[in-house]
């Protein structure tokens, strides 16, 4: 390992840095997500790229997973920081304090998966209407379970 990745690995010797299909990944406990992300930024991963959630439904180490993708531009490297969350309490610390760009992405994960990001300045729905009930990308939401809104022209009151 070289560059920012090596700096980060040196800073956290207790974390396991691995490679999956050529991508550098590190798994952290959710309490440390913001801390490790901030350290990654100081180590040289200056650009925030992506944050998303995955629902693994019946995975023993935690139903949900928050995935943060960062890039170092100077020495082209990517790192993926993954953090598992239990299905009973899907909360994670917000990283908007480290990267303001995470704002929309955390709102999206909240909207579609119901993951609460503690410390987010404005955790509201972003893609779905504000009065929507449920989180449609969760695996326990069946596809096609939402009735399509439809009104026959004859029933139009005007």
């Amino acid at each position, binding site marked *: 390992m070289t560059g920012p990745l090596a700096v980060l690995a040196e800073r956290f010797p207790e974390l396991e840095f691995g490679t*999956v*299909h*050529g*991508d550098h990944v590190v798994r952290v406990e959710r309490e440390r997500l913001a801390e490790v992300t901030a350290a990654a930024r100081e180590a040289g991963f*200056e*650009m*925030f*790229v*992506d944050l*998303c959630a*995955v*629902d*693994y439904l019946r995975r023993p180490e935690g139903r949900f997973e928050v*995935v943060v*993708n960062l*890039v170092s*531009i*100077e020495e*082209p490297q*990517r790192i*993926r920081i993954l953090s598992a969350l239990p299905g009973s309490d899907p909360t994670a610390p917000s990283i*908007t*304090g480290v*990267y*303001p*760009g995470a*704002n*929309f992405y955390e709102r999206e994960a909240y909207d*579609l998966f119901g993951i609460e990001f503690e410390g987010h*300045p*404005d955790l509201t*729905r*972003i*893609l*779905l*209407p504000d009065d929507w009930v449920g989180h*449609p*990308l969760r695996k326990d939401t069946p*596809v096609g379970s939402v009735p399509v809104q439809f009104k026959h022209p004859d029933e139009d009151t005007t």
Partner: protein
Amino acid sequence: MSNPPDVVTGDTEAPDVTERSEAVDRPSESERERRRVHSVWVTGTEAPVDSGDFTSEGAQEMLADEAGAVLAAQRGTLVSDDYLVDVDASEDETQIINMGPQHPSTHGVLRLQLELDGETIRRVKPIIGYLHTGMERTAEVLTFMQGPTNVTRMDYLSPFHNELCFSLAVERLLGIDVPPRASAIRVLMTELNRVASHLLWFATQGMDIGALSMMIYGWREREAVLAFFEAVTGLRMNHNYIRPGGVAADLPDGWEDDVSGILEQIPKGLADYEDLLTANPVFLERTQGVGVITPAECLAYGVTGPVARASGVDYDVRKAFPYSGIEQYEFDVPLGRHGDVYDRYLVRLGETRQALRIVRQVLETMPPGDYRSEDRKVTPPPRARIDQSMEALIHHFKLFTEGFKVPAGETYQAVESARGELGMYLVSNGGAKPWRLHVRGPSFANLQAVPAMLTDSLIADLVSALASVDPVMGDVDR
């Protein structure tokens, strides 16, 4: 008429239009930011680098020197969440105005909530989701084979990039390589797609600020590229042409002539646009110093593509993380230094020429061979084989009924679309359908930076700045 140095030929004799007159008034902060960012045109040969003001080292290195300042700026006032419009807390003198979602200049169904103090924008809040159709969930019910039909509809102005990104992600999980000809065809199509997308941007940007002839000219040149797409794929958009394992069909007979025609026609069109716009006083007035975003803000918000490069952030996925053998072609990455609408125009102009440069190299070096992988577990057999071989028939049947299985795992694959880094995070559980597909649309992140561009600017600049970001709402809302 002055022209910017020709990026393709490295011709730097023409005067540098990016030398601004003193009349253009910009805040001192962006002035300082500007000096931290290096030269405009990376010609590869004679970059006009002024060692006094600009250093030849990367913008990132300079940012690192001022890391403390950048950090403080991002946590402090430079990047904050106070653009969020709180109707109750607004002052009496300001008024809240909704622009969109049906406004013609919002490029689709985007709604901007504006807090105005007279003509000045105090705060902006983009409100999205009007085009949300749950495509990430749809991806989970389609097989990996059907996947490209879904993702190609996301960023409908650069459909090939969507297909390529998805196919590359699937191929990485499968662990298969595609033949060199398939990769070359992919590069050809995606770079032509970049040309088509930027041509449309010239058209709409021109129209949005009143240059109505640009609208016609941009569409006219783009038509040549779309006609070629139709000849190759059968469709003008939503092609479903790049698929896991290769491409759907080989290039048609006579494709070399078509591409040569495009290579002849588009540069002429670009020269026309330059005559129309590059030194046009009205265009300069509407674009220079408008919608400025600093490199630090680009990094913090995850802004990529031409918008970030116009600010001097030297990040191009094709250079940093090459894919499909694009590293074997010669091309440069044009950079701006002012981070305003005008530099985004110049950067897109340069990128269009660089894309044509890659297309020319692909045309000259197109390798012979298969256009898709011969792995029959992934790509269907040729039609003639089905009549002769039971195995081929079974493979064909299995592929088109249940699809192919992809080993469990997850991967993040990125390509440089016309708007920036298009990334897909693909999770497979070992079945024939993705367990999860997350799409990192470049427009989504770029749109997030619009408040930073527009705060305390005039409302007349809003349309110009918003158009310069080139948001595609299909990509934002998915």
